[in-house]
């Protein structure tokens, strides 16, 4: 006991020996990140090569920007980038508005049990994977599925939700909102819980209706959170949702539904064009990096948000 106390004294607070252990704690994480994050980052050099598995990175031929040139000359890829942008932007816009409105509506519920029940039900889809939900939705939205059956029962015409490009995009956006809006309200509800009740009392005394209270008290108190969330989501401009698209797409709608990520998988891993697929992926990573760096910077500057 005494010996170890002396030892602690000798090495002192923040002394080399004690800090050595802190570095040791970080070592396994650092090693894993180097191998499975940093080496793949360096691996992007194959986007500038004609990479052959048997030759390796050292032996493969350098081709410069050829893959990028091919990529932007290819009309199909331009179409895929457009698909990605349209789907991702629609999701971002709708995905920003829906939780905000839902949180405001939920905030008006005065019966606690009802509020809890609603929360329990709407958070659930977030935790299910797109494999599960894609499987269920393709079944439900098919020609003979339950959704079309219900629409026919109401005298509406059937819709091929997954059979035409336009409807497919629409379905992607709506089902994505359906899955995530509930979870998105959590952060707003937390902000709403922190609103000072005295503000409502003052507004009430001034004769403000509930609508005006919502517009002038509730909304301003959560809009800052909303702006941060919206800003941070901008980094997703090229993230149209691989899991979802992969599990819901079919050849009929590939023209308007194929996105960068599914294309990279198809060309790279299924067709073996490693270098070209890496180039397409790199384009996406670089655009995302710029946007993420920019949005984190904005969020930090204006809302003092930071990760570490």
């Amino acid at each position, binding site marked *: *006991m005494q010996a170890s*106390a002396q030892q*602690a004294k000798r090495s002192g607070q923040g002394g080399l020996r004690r800090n050595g252990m*802190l*570095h040791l*704690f*970080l070592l396994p*994480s650092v090693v*894993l*990140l180097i*191998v*499975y*994050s940093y*080496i*793949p*980052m360096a*691996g*992007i050099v194959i986007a500038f090569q004609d990479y052959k598995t048997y030759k390796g990175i050292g032996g493969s031929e350098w081709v410069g920007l050829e893959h990028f040139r091919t990529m932007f000359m290819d009309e199909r890829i331009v179409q895929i980038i457009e698909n990605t942008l349209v789907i991702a932007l629609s999701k971002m816009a709708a995905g920003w508005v829906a939780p905000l409105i839902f949180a405001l*509506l939920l905030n008006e*519920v005065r*019966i606690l049990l009802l509020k809890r*029940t*609603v929360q*329990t*039900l*709407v958070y*659930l889809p977030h*935790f*299910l*994977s797109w*494999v*599960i939900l894609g*499987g*269920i*939705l393709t*079944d*439900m939205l098919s020609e*003979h*599925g339950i959704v079309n*059956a219900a629409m026919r029962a109401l005298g509406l015409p059937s819709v091929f939700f997954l059979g035409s490009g336009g409807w497919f995009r629409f379905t992607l956006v709506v089902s994505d909102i359906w899955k995530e809006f*509930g979870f998105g309200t*959590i*952060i707003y509800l*937390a902000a709403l819980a922190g609103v000072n009740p005295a503000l409502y009392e003052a507004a*009430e005394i001034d004769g403000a209706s509930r609508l005006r209270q919502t517009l002038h008290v509730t909304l301003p108190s959560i809009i800052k*959170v909303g702006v941060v969330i919206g800003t941070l989501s901008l980094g997703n401009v090229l993230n149209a949702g*691989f*899991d979802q698209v*992969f599990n819901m797409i079919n050849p009929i709608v590939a023209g308007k539904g194929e996105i960068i990520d599914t294309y*990279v998988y198809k060309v*790279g891993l299924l067709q073996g064009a*490693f270098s070209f*697929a*890496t180039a397409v*992926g790199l384009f*996406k*990573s670089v655009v995302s*990096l710029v946007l993420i760096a920019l949005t984190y910077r904005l969020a930090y500057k204006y809302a003092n948000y930071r*990760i*570490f």
Partner: protein
Amino acid sequence: MYYKSPGYRAFAFANTGLLLAISIACVLPLVHVVAVSLSSSAAATGNLVSLWPIGFTLDNYAKTFGSSQFLQALWISVLRTTLGTLLSMALCVLAAYPMSKADEKFKGRSLYSWFFVATILFNGGLIPAYIVVVKTGINNTLLALILPGAVAVFNVVLMMNFFRGIPAELEEASQIDGASHLRTLINVYLPISMPSIATLSLFSMVGHWNSWFDGLIYMEAAKQPLATMVQALVANLDLTRINLNPEDIKNLSQRGLRSTQIFLGALPILVVYPFLQKYFVKGMTLGAVKE
């Protein structure tokens, strides 16, 4: 009071109706899939089932659990979820402890934080990641499903923030008693962090259970986890994967079997969901507010 006015009452009534309708819409698809899985083959194939089983039968479940491929995939999912979560949490706690120290007390901290953040900002993309996994020789082993994602940087951040909330006096007291950092972490930090560790573990488990793409690209068919197997089933309607003889396939509706497997894939999530819900609100907002 505003909520006594007739206008607001009408709104509150309509609002309640709307919210309930939306909530029900969030779970109806699951109810539907369960109903189909419990229905007779004829009813399922004929699209007669809506929200209640027609011609109730457990045939689909009996067949699914009788398939050795299904049980194998289930076992792999259980293994990857357990081992993956254990490893991920151990790494998370070990990394969060030094990162929770002040910059002055732990020289090099800011360098590490850049090292971690960079992995969120940028990644090499699918192909280089795939090549590294193959070159390190871990494809077709359980490690391929565990190692590449083992360091969950966001969890490290959440854990770090929690550690920062622990009173400095506790650490000082243990240091005066001569405890090393390791002992301080194990005997002081861990016991008071159990609720946070439980929360993050649950999240990690859900992530592992749901994860399917790594199984698809890194594992040969016989070694894929359940999520990947269900994905193949959904994508290709490939019923031969679950080792049924042609006779059985004829007698069972594809739709019923598929629904059964989809539901079984979701079941563990539904089971842990009540526990999850207790914690995730805290987890979500934990990282949002910093002093």
